[in-house]
């Protein structure tokens, strides 16, 4: 079993904060197929469309039949550990700071040999293992050989934690903690073992059900935060920016309207102000401190979560301006991801289908319960993924969008 994680000691303010380093991030374009699947938490390998050979490392052609039709197929990862080693020396700074480091060579039952990071609970070779693909701190997919069966405190493995963003013993900011979703996310973070959860509220005078009960939790503290107000954002960042390990941006403005149903741009402007400019303000104020603390010990700064919408992929005309603001936020989030990656801070984009709240009242079920969505956020942090499509509606839209984005555009328009 892995040694259970313990609460880190208070940081000694005299010591220098360790600068973030990254594992080697160079990859060929072929190998980025592995990253694309790992970003959603899947382990996929090239599987030849003509002869069925499963191959690794990724190639430009099938090594058996030379076909260049090599779709990526999800693997179960079952395999046999053939050999293992523990590195006591590395040529790379990131690993040098984290030695010793366990590695294994695994023969997948699907028929390829892989080199993988080796979980501490896997005994020496020979052993059965399950190989998965995860994003490392460089944001690139790596393979991890895990124990065949669940072991106690499995997620506390020292090497595994270098790839995940587990909220346990970390401090999180939920940018709007007052909505049903914001409250659910704050509760889920507390349940996941977060030390402190700051919940933002833009309008302290507004009473919303459940909020007082949330604030009664010892880990939860309300803070003033209006993401449409640059000064409010900057002031909060000055106060707690250097302590926040995880930002979950739940602030959202949502009205059900297209173009013709409403005169003027005020609603659309408000949506943009919260959904797009709000993210920009937060990223500018909180981003630098997060990046600086990305290697700050066991509870380093590690993740930024954006609540987007599946409508960011293709416009849903009934909620047309909202969709547009989420598309803008998605684009900005890709920029944020690129800027956070050099320090290894993960940007997680969540693309839910309609949430079961007042603004989606007229949409038919299935709708996503706030608690379900909050659970998906915590799971994404624990699994270290960066793109999440929670719920049946999101999954179906994603499938349709991947299959044929033009067809989806027509289908949504009704």
């Amino acid at each position, binding site marked *: 079993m892995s040694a259970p994680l313990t609460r880190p000691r208070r940081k000694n303010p005299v010591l220098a904060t360790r600068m973030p380093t990254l*594992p080697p991030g160079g990859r060929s374009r072929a*190998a980025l197929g592995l990253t694309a699947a790992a970003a959603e938490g899947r382990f996929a390998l090239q599987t030849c469309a003509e002869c069925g050979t499963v191959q690794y490392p990724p190639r430009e052609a099938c090594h058996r039949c030379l076909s260049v039709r090599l779709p990526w197929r999800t693997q179960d990862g079952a395999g046999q550990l053939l050999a293992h*080693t523990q590195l006591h020396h*590395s040529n*790379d700074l990131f690993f040098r700071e984290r030695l010793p480091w366990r590695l294994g060579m695994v*023969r997948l039952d699907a028929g390829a040999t892989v*080199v993988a*990071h080796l979980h501490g609970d896997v005994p020496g070779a020979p052993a059965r293992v399950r190989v998965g693909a995860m994003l490392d701190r*460089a944001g690139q997919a790596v393979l991890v050989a895990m124990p065949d069966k669940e072991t106690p405190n499995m997620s506390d493995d020292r090497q595994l934690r270098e790839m995940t963003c587990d909220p346990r013993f970390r401090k999180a900011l939920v940018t709007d903690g007052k909505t049903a979703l914001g409250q659910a996310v704050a509760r889920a973070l507390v349940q996941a073992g977060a030390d402190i959860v700051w919940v933002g509220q833009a309008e302290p005078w507004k009473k919303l059900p459940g909020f007082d009960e949330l604030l009664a939790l010892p880990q939860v503290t309300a803070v003033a935060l209006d993401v449409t107000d640059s000064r409010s954002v900057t002031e909060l960042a000055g106060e707690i920016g250097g302590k926040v390990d995880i930002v979950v941006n739940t602030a959202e403005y949502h009205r059900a309207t297209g173009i013709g149903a409403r005169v003027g741009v005020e609603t659309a402007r408000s949506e943009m102000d919260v959904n797009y400019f709000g993210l920009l303000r937060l990223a500018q104020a909180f981003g630098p401190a997060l990046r600086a603390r990305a290697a700050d010990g066991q509870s380093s700064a590690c993740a930024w979560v954006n609540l987007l919408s599946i409508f960011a992929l293709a416009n849903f005309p009934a909620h047309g301006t909202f969709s547009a603001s989420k598309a803008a936020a998605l684009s900005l989030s890709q920029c944020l991801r690129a800027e956070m990656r050099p320090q290894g801070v993960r940007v997680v984009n969540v693309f839910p289908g309609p949430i079961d709240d007042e603004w989606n009242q007229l949409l038919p079920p299935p709708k996503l319960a706030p608690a379900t969505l909050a659970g998906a956020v915590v799971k994404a942090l624990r699994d270290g993924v960066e793109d999440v499509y929670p719920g049946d509606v999101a999954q179906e839209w994603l499938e349709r969008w991947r299959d044929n984005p033009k067809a989806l555009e027509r289908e949504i328009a009704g």
Partner: protein
Amino acid sequence: MTRRRLGYDDVVVAAPVTVPYVRYSIRAAHWFVARALAGLLQRAGLPKEAVDGVCVSSFTLAPDSAIGLMQHLGLSPRWLDWLPVGGASGVLALRRAARAVQCGDADVVACIAADTNHVDSFRLTLSNFSMFARDAVYPYGAGGPNASFAFLTDHYMRTYGATRADFGKLCVAQRDSALRNPVALFRKPLTLDEYLDARPIADPLHLFDCVMPCAGADAFLVLHRDRAEALGLPHARLLGTIERHNAFADDPIQVRGGWVADRDDLYAQAGVGPADVDLMQAYDDYPVITLMQIEDLGFCAKGDGPAFVRGHRFTTDGDFPLNTSGGQLSVGQAGCAGGYLGVVETIRQLTDDAGARQVPHARVGLVSGFGMINFDRGLATGAALLGRAA
């Protein structure tokens, strides 16, 4: 049915040259190539213009390749080859140059392997070694070949019962030879206890299992026997050679190399058998590979390597002289020159040019090459049998 291969007739190898190894150098690889070429010319008493064939191996010549070197060094050969294939460089160069000379495409071929080593070159070479290495090995701890050979060693030990002491016996014997090699970088005696007590690098590999990257060059000439005799050059005959790439790709992990596929061909072409071999130069970046070569080139059955080690002595006065220069483990690994070390040592031994480490009465020498850990295993294997000139 495979056609019978032609022999190498009167092709000979001569003029072994080593540009002394250094741990680090501020020079470019070109400097080492130039020193090696000058050494060849001086040794043979030939003007530069007489070299009409050139074969170069290097990992650190970038952005140049062999062709750029021709202008750099003022050469105008009518035959040129570029073989940056690491540990297989020596045998592959030998094979190609021999056919060029035999067929008259070149008269005097200078085969040169040279690499420099700046303080950070090894890391840079590793991180860009190959597409598979960059995608599927280097991001995993960046241990370089240490990690790859740790897997092979771990698996070999468990499968065939080899112990650290078996590997240690080889390393200690090679160090004994290195003490009598003036260009070896390791000049301190090594005991088995020191070997066993060394610090771990990548379990089960410890310090003395790992080659030390360095800068240096090795070179030799391939030419017709008549030419060598006219120049008064001591030389060795080329009896037989093989090479093989990406052999046994379906083996889940490497326990054998391509030698197994081709060794019968090697001995048949040379007209000798394993029992006729007086000394062996195996590729020894890590001792597990030496055991694999002893097995795969027919000195014992697969898996009997540990017993073979326990039953033989590998020093120059032993019953199985092995890596008599000290091998890479005690001389150093100067990049691609590591693949030449065995060739120049074999020529020296067969021309009584090995000084204090001379193996008496050596008539047949076997040199083996192994190179390019592209992903999980070495891809290139080769071997050559050389004979004392009649």
